[in-house]
């Protein structure tokens, strides 16, 4: 039996009013990849924060035994000294600085008062090679893509002499291609003897890469599944542990929904980049969506999906538009105005709910009414009783978990925030809903609820366009699928004809390739 590198014993962590972790146990063997899975708020990140010393010794109960020794970390530096390095979900790089500067931020090479830049960049290049990143360490971080930035984060961790690497959702902002490369990189590290803990929502990736999978639910460890058999463990098996019940169907059936006439038609739609007007971001795209239909748009990150949706929504992205937009058979000359798009019954539900979707410092009530505030107002004066009633109505309809609609949105979990975002746009009463990554970063249970909402919308005769980079989701939810790559629509398929394989093959053929 291999040596146990890390053992966390009976960890209990209490926040005022909540027990975030309750007697959690975790054993990680040397040289393995150990996955932590669980719904949002299950306590995965809290556990890793305890391990890395963000929550110092004394603020939790239980023991951390690393390399046979009981550890009492009082900050991150202590844990990093022993080679425990955590890479957080949100990239923590300074965009204006070079890769090398970023890698040695807080860990500078050279003397106390003089940084040795030659050593810095030389060593940085060495680690960049280890993560297969073909960039010079003197390149500014802002000029490279997210996929490469994630690799820089890993190189940065390696530069700290990591022995136990913790990756918190490392692929959440990567496309399939980059994700796969990252996972293979992890497998390569494993061969060299590195021990890793990965936190992820993407169960197919977990099944692919992990040796053992520990499931956490409601702050306690449920089970540890061994994944070293010849067949990778099934996603259903993991989900069962996460939600505590068998999920026979991850995508609810849409039954008896009649697909009607064409609601929206986009013809020869071309959009240019706002900063580089000579670059086409959306290139001669023609799509349509019918009443009661869910149309999926699948594409890798950077394929122009978000840009397409935003440019349809009141030209809120891009410059130099051309093409026709028809709604209900009539051509619409839309101004460059989001309010105009809302008047034409279009809603764009953003992929970035915290960045440009919700106002985190305001209540659920204020967020819910925002896109259709005028319907609650007479002569510019808001009927606040009615507003409250509307917010309550949508809270009940979407089963948003909150004590009151006066709760600040910033205090809600990701899934509940997504519901508030949907509530805002449902209250705007659109006929056409452009949903951009509607289930990004939310847990399995909440995803299912969002899918049910999408089905309800279709049943009401709304036209839904769902953009997603999760293939199973696109396959499971859509009536029809468009495949987009490099700003162009490269294929259209009926849901029953589409498979993961033929979609990926289309994308590879279209030239970008792996």
């Amino acid at each position: 039996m291999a040596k146990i590198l890390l053992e966390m014993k009976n960890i209990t962590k209490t926040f005022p009013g909540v027990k975030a972790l309750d007697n959690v146990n975790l054993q990680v063997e040397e040289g393995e990849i150990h996955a932590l899975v669980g719904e949002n708020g299950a306590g995965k990140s809290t556990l890793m924060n305890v391990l890395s010393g963000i929550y110092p010794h004394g603020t939790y109960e239980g023991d951390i035994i690393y390399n046979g020794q009981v550890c009492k970390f009082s900050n991150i530096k202590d844990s990093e000294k022993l080679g425990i390095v955590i890479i957080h979900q949100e990239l923590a790089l300074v965009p204006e600085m070079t890769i090398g500067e970023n890698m040695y931020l807080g860990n500078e090479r050279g003397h106390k008062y003089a940084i040795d830049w030659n050593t810095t960049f030389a060593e940085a290049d060495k680690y960049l090679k280890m993560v297969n990143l073909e960039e010079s360490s003197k390149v500014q971080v802002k000029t490279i893509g997210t996929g490469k930035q994630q690799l820089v984060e890993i190189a940065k961790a390696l530069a700290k002499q990591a022995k136990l690497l913790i990756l918190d959702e490392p692929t959440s902002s990567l496309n399939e291609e980059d994700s796969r490369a990252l996972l293979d990189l992890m497998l390569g590290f494993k061969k060299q003897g590195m021990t890793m803990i990965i936190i992820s929502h993407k169960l197919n990736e977990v099944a692919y890469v992990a040796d053992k999978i520990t499931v956490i639910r409601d702050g306690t460890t449920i089970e540890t599944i061994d994944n070293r058999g010849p067949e990778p463990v099934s996603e259903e098996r993991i989900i069962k542990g996460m939600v505590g019940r068998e999920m026979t169907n991850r995508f609810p059936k849409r039954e008896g929904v009649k697909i009607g006439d064409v609601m929206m038609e986009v013809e020869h739609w071309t959009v240019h980049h706002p900063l580089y007007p000579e670059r086409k971001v959306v290139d001669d795209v023609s799509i349509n969506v019918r009443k009661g239909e869910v149309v999926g748009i699948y594409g890798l990150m950077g394929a122009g999906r978000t840009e397409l949706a935003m440019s349809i929504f009141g030209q809120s992205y891009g410059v130099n538009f051309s093409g026709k937009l028809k709604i209900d058979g009539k051509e619409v000359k839309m101004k460059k105005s989001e309010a105009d798009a809302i008047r034409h019954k279009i809603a764009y539900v953003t992929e970035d709910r915290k960045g440009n979707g919700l106002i985190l410092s305001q209540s659920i009530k204020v967020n819910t009414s925002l896109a259709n505030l005028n319907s609650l107002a007479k002569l510019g004066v808001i009927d606040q009783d009615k507003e409250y009633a509307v917010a309550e109505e949508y809270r009940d309809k979407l089963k948003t978990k909150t004590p009151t609609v006066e709760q600040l949105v910033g205090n809600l979990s990701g899934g509940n925030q997504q519901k508030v975002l949907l509530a805002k746009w449902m209250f705007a009463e659109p006929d056409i809903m452009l949903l951009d990554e509607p289930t990004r970063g939310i847990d399995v249970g909440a995803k299912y609820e969002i899918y049910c909402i999408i089905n309800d919308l279709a049943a009401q005769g709304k036209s839904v366009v769902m953009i997603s980079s999760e293939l199973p989701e696109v396959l499971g939810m859509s009536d029809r699928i468009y495949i987009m790559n490099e700003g162009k629509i490269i294929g259209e398929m009926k849901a029953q004809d589409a498979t993961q394989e033929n979609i990926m093959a289309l994308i590879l053929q279209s030239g970008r390739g792996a």
Partner: protein
Amino acid sequence: MENKALNKSNIRKPHSISMLKKNAMLIILVLVYIFFTIMTKGRMFKPTSFASLINQNAYVYILGCGMLMCMLTGGNIDLSCGAFVCLLGALGGMMMVVWKWGTGISLLAMLAIGVLYGCGLGALIAYVMVPPWIATLAGYLAFRGLGTSILSVSSTNSISFKDNQTFLNIFSGTLFKTPEGQMNMPCLIVGIVAAVLVVLLIFNTRATRLRKGYEVDTLGMDVAKSALGALAILLIMYKLALAGGIPTVLVWVAAVVLLYAFITSKTTVGRHFYVVGGNMEAARLSGVNTKRIMFLAYLNMAILTSISAMIVISRYTAANADAGKNFEMDAISACVVGGVSASGGAGTVLGMVIGATLIGVINLGMFQINLDANYQRVVKGFVLLAAVVFDILSKKRNT
């Protein structure tokens, strides 16, 4: 819905610590007032002190409303308002005294100039996207110079309004003046009516919310709130009645403050200021015309600055080069002490009023105990810093 009204859980339980935090500035205001009353052996509590608090700080309340709207949009400020008061005062002096225009025409012209400046400034900030502090820094530098050069027509660099009683009556002086020490009945009656209105308003809101099944405070809380509100109004109006009556400027202040309290809390435009400051991109993608809101913030500021200019030259019965000095800082301080977020999206008119009053009380108190003017500045600086630190710390504990 109806049976929900009987549900006890709809009653918001008073939570002593969060209540303390919420009303901290109000409590500090009362304590500071008591402190200075003791230090001045009761002089601070005399009717004349109440009257001078209002007369001296009127401009802070009015500029504070404008600055609040600017800050709500994302912590943006207007540095030019003090200097613009000086320029507009000088122009007003020229119109009313040197060119002998009618008072009404002159005031309208002043307002028009304010609107013009506001449109220009608003357009620069909202559509050309000049950062607000730079756009207004230009005015800060230019306007006082311009104002002073206009005033140089007079050998004393000052234009006096003492012959224009109509103008002075509109913005300064006292309504239905009675000799000091004698009870001024109109003032007292206004006070009683206002106090009754406050009580009625609180209980009417409570009744509506209960009927519709919404969350309400406990009965005791609402009784305490209305009692305190009514008593405060009665005390102030009683003191003012003994000081000769309602200062004219109080009517202006009350009108502006009530109007902006209404706009910020009840209207769609007011709501848009909060959401633009809370998340500009989210507001834009929700169909809010964010540029228009930025434009309105600075147009509005210029209009309120114009009214302040009228009030200030009327109070000093003269337009002079020093008018409006540091007004921008006073307005910003009032907002910040009153809990308006320096990054935008949060803050109330009531908070700003309490902040302005607290600073006003400290100023008057320090003056009455004859504190050296230099130390007065030191104290003001630390009060500002303490307020912000307190605000940050109290928010931290909440999470």
